[in-house]
Structure formats: structure tokens, C-alpha cells
């Protein structure tokens, strides 16, 4: 009897906790669909649903353009991190060259370096390269990641050398060995790196705020941020929330489908990082 009561209390507690994480998002989506005057009284049920907030927001900011920009930037960064990360990780795991151990230790060292050191000089670099207000500033510095290199190195280490020797005997170049022979064997690592890189890129806002001023080139979180803090939303809650909903939606959809991969990837990155 006591066991059963305990169980019930446990479920009530966990359900309350789950609701406290989910309800605010539900409220946000509902509020974005509610007339401005009603948002203050909004509880659980919809009141006078309308798309007004969305149509107003579309008229004020180029949100679709920013969605496209974010998509391009995140895709290119992710592709770069996977391709270049595999190359460097492969070299560290399977090739022999002078300075290999030093490079490996140095990569670990760069991971402990707080980004606050390099932020300002990197901005100046962008100015000198003429990359301010271009997509190059968002993509090129993001094409490599120390964390991805270490994950790929780990994955390649577990592959037997014989596979690589056999490929070499068949006349395969190193790049073909990586992308054609080895990649099919490390798909979980590719997925992990892909999810984390894409998500970080999609959610990053500090760097875009620094290097992009042109509204047409802004990423989505940047545009939503400037919309929320600037005067253009004219203190209209629903309009701000509508832009936030659109920003959250792609990740919420991806998360609902690939939820297991998201959690596994982030947990393994936390454990290794």
C-alpha cells in the first residue's frame, strides 16, 4: 500500500516537472495566435484565435529571408565541420607524421581556451578581410571544430588498420579512404557531430550580432533578438512572440522526430567535452 502511494506521488511530481518545461512553450505558441488585448488573461484554452500577429510580423521584418540565411549558414558550417573534422581526425588516428602528438595536444589546449580571448581579434580580422556583412564571416570561421576532430579521431581509432591497408593496395587515395571506405563505418559519430554543429550554429547569436549589420543578411536568432529589443515591435507582445515561435519551430520539429539522437549526441558531447 505504501509502495503504491509512493508511486503515485512520484508520478505526480514528474508530471508537474514535465509540465513546467512544456507549458511555457505551449503558452507561447497560443499567445502568438491570440489578439494582443487577450494575451494578459491567457490560461490553458485558446481565446479568439487569429493570425494577426504573424501577418504584422511578416510586414515588419524579413523573417523568411533570415530563415533561409540561417539554413544556409548552419548547413554549410555543419558540412565543413564534418568533412574537415573527418580529415583531421583521420590523420590524427591513422596517419604517421612528425608533430602528430603535438598537434593532438594543441587541439585539446585550444578547447580549454575561452572564446573571450579571440572574439575581438577575430572581428578585426573580418573587418580587414572585408567580410563584415557577408556570409563568409558566418561560415568560414565555423568550418572547423576541435570538438568534432576529437570525436572523429576516436571513431577512426576503433577501425582496424587492415581495412585501410587493403584500400591502399587497391589504389585508393587518402580522401577516398576517408569518405568512401571509412565514413559508412562511423555513421553514429557523423550524426552526433552533425546534430551538435547544426544546433549550435542555428542558435548562435553573439557572432552574427557582431559581424552582420545588413538586415537582409541577418540570421534568424539575430533578427528576432533585434526585433525583440528594438522599437519596431512597438511593445506588441504577440508580434514578438510570433517571431520567437517561428525561430523555435524548426528545432522543435527536428527534436520531436530525432529526439533520441539529440539527447544521445548532447550527452556524449557533454561527457567527452
Amino acid at each position, binding site marked *: 500500500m505504501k509502495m503504491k502511494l509512493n508511486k503515485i506521488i512520484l508520478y505526480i511530481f514528474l508530471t508537474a516537472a514535465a509540465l513546467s518545461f512544456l507549458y511555457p512553450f505551449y503558452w507561447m505558441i497560443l499567445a502568438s495566435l491570440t489578439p494582443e488585448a487577450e494575451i494578459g488573461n491567457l490560461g490553458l484554452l485558446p481565446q479568439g484565435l487569429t493570425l494577426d500577429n504573424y501577418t504584422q510580423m511578416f510586414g515588419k521584418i524579413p523573417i523568411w529571408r533570415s530563415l533561409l540565411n540561417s539554413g544556409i549558414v548552419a548547413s554549410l558550417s555543419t558540412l565543413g565541420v564534418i568533412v574537415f573534422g573527418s580529415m583531421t581526425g583521420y590523420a590524427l588516428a591513422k596517419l604517421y607524421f612528425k608533430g602528430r602528438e603535438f598537434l593532438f595536444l594543441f587541439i585539446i589546449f585550444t578547447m580549454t581556451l575561452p572564446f*573571450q580571448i579571440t572574439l575581438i581579434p577575430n572581428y578585426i580580422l573580418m573587418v580587414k578581410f572585408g567580410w563584415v556583412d557577408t556570409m563568409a564571416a558566418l561560415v568560414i570561421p565555423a568550418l572547423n571544430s576541435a570538438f568534432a576532430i576529437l570525436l572523429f579521431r576516436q571513431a577512426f581509432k576503433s577501425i582496424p588498420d587492415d581495412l585501410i591497408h587493403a584500400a591502399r593496395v587497391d589504389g585508393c587515395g587518402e580522401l577516398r579512404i576517408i569518405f568512401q571506405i571509412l565514413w559508412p563505418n562511423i555513421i553514429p559519430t557523423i550524426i552526433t557531430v552533425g546534430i551538435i554543429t547544426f544546433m549550435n550554429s542555428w542558435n548562435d547569436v553573439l557572432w552574427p550580432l557582431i559581424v552582420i549589420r545588413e538586415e537582409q543578411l541577418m540570421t534568424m536568432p539575430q533578427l528576432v533578438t533585434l526585433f525583440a529589443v528594438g522599437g519596431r515591435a512597438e511593445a506588441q507582445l504577440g508580434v514578438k512572440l510570433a517571431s520567437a515561435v517561428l525561430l523555435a519551430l524548426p528545432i522543435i520539429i527536428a527534436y520531436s522526430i530525432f529526439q533520441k539522437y539529440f539527447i544521445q549526441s548532447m550527452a556524449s558531447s557533454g561527457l567527452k567535452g
Partner: protein
Amino acid sequence: MPEKTKQNKSFRNRVKPYLVVSPYLVHLLLFILFPVVFSIVLTFHKWNIIAPMEFIGVDNFVRLLEDRLFWKALLNTFQFLLVHIPLQIIVALALAYFLNRQLFARGFFRASFFMPVVISGVVVTVLWQQLYGLETGLFNRILIHLGFGRVEWISDPGIAMISIAIMATWKNVGLYVILFLVGLQSVPSSYYEAAEVEGATAWQQFRYITLPAINPTVFMVVILSTIGGFSLFIEPYIMTDGGPLNSTLSAMLYIYKQAFGYYHMGYSATLGLFFALLIMIVVVIQKYAVEAKE
């Protein structure tokens, strides 16, 4: 002749690895090594990018020492960490502890705790700005409904940073629940069974079996949330712009304003370098504190 091709081949074999790592080497040189060296150069200069650089010796350091707003921002950041880290550990550990058993819909609970982790901090902050609203915010409406008074969540300088720390905990805690779950699952269930036989209470089991087993996880959570907390930027930027009375001005937000509000490149690089060194020192101290304890 054959010897020469052989030599050529071995030369190619020696160069090949460097070609494979070359994309990363370029990146390393351009976006990590050069910036680190250049940031040290910048600290001795006054520069707004447009005019020529002006050598000013250690003036930037003197200014940093006398910059009361920067020290205030540092203090604010530590205040944030002081609330954020313990809260995060307690909540994450509690949720993980209750999740670590045979449960109906366990995956659903885990997925809902994790949900805010994947969502942009921008969305979370815009949302919580409304939840914290003075008149129509959800929290105050609940408080009034229950017969309490209003709380000035983000307009009272004494509370605003704590409110931001609560929000950040809500956003990140799901990740740490997962990490703790991994740690908890590493404890063999036979330990608990043996303790049960010996008549240990639930608290005793938690204190003497669970806690020692997850010590490494606690350390990792502390390090990860310290590094994350030091980068606190977008939350106060959107929620309060550092106010009221600079009570939520984080160190990162202050550096951002110095650099991109006033274009004080030399000074903001000095602040960045100093702040980064401070972060590394704090992390090293935490590391030693844990190792000494073990």
C-alpha cells in the same frame, strides 16, 4: 630511375598527412593563433579600427583596474554563478534520481526535461520576459491568484540577476539530468539490494551509495555550467539590457558594449584577455579542489 620514383613516392607519403590536416592548420593559424597573439598586441594599444593604432603602454590595464563598472559586471557574473550552479545541481540531481527507475512514460519525461536545451536562448528569453512580466506575467498572476503580492522579477535590482539565473537553470537543466542519469546508471543495483537487506533507509542509500558514485558527474556539471555561465550574454541583452541599475550587466555584455557600442578595440581586447584568464584560473581551482577532495 626506379630509385628516384621511390624517393618521390616516399616524399609524397611524408607530405600527404600534412595536406590532409591543412584545412585545420589554416583555421588554427588564422582564427586561433593569430587572434591570441593579436589580442596581446591590442592590449597595449588604443584603436577604433579606422584611425591608426596608438601605442599607450599599460594604460588599458590601469583603466581596467579603475573601471568600477567592469568590476561590477564581474561581480554580477559571479552572483549569477552562485545561484545558477547549486540550483542546477540540486534540480538536475533530483529529477535524475526520480527518473532512474522502471517507469511508465520514462522517455516522455526525459524528453520534456530536455526540450529547452535544444531551443535557442533567444526564444527562451523572449518567452520568460513575458512570464516575468509585472502585471500580466504568468508568475505574478499565479502569485496573486494564490493570495501573495507581486514580485518585481526583472525590475528590482536586487532580484533581477537571480531571476535570470533561474531562467538559465530552467533552460539548461535537462542536459545535466541526462548526464546525472548516466552516472546513476553506473551504480550496480546489487549495491542497493544489499543495502536494502541491511535495512538502510532511502536517504542513507542516497548518501552512501549514490552520491559517491556520481561525484565525477557533479564535477563535470560544475565545470560545464561555470564555463557556460561566464559566457552569459544574450539573456541579459534581451531581458534587461544590463539594467536595472546595471544589476544584470554581465562581464560578457560589458565587453560587447565596449567593443561594439564604443569601438574601444584595445580596451575591450584587454577586458577579454583578462576575463579569459580569470575563467581559466577559476576552472583550474575547481579542478584542484575536486582532486584534493578525492
